[in-house]
């Protein structure tokens, strides 16, 4: 489990952003000894939502193998943070 600070580092956003998501119920968290703890798996599931992407042109929406195009904004933003 991750603390809010650790979770924020993992997704490259501020602790405040993570806390707000928890408060709004958009990121599941448990409380232990007064500290919010976040499941890394749950964090990864919502990570892309933290980096909203503009609409893709039709020809970019799927990769050559037919899988949906991933969130490029998240990928670049996280690479800036060395993740």
């Amino acid at each position: 489990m991750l603390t809010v600070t650790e979770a924020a580092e993992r997704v490259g956003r501020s602790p405040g952003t993570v806390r707000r998501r928890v408060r709004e119920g958009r990121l599941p968290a448990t409380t232990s000894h007064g500290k919010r703890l976040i499941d890394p798996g749950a964090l990864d599931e919502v990570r892309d939502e933290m980096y909203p992407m503009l609409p893709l042109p039709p020809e970019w929406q799927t990769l050559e193998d037919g899988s949906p195009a991933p969130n490029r904004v998240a990928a670049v933003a996280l690479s800036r943070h060395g993740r």
Partner: protein
Amino acid sequence: LKLVIDANVAIAAAAANPVGFKRFRRFELVAPPLMWIEAVPVRTPCSGAASCAVSRPSQCVTAYSRLPYDDTSRMGLSRKRVGCSGGDGLGCRAKTYDANYVSLARLLGCRLITLDARMRRGTSRLGFVVGPTELDGR
């Protein structure tokens, strides 16, 4: 007609190779040297964010080697761009990395294309930052 291309757009277009860049055929694509630095880590097959960006890295390495854009360091614009970014301010909510792209577009007097919705929103009053689907008919 120049068009500054953000790293996330370059990655998306390269992954859609060979049709990815057809959308930009009437433009001369330009990017700061930073774009290459940003694009390279994303293309590698490691864990975390990188794996979500590229599922077939060998194809993307090939695609990157053919990226049809000009590196502005070869155009002698780097020093001017830094001056533009740091001197008179951008007048928008662009972060450090984004500011490289925004200031370059402003310096060249052309549009900047990005997939980043937050960047698009933060720079909306500048009027030259657009998404890929907004290029049509403009």
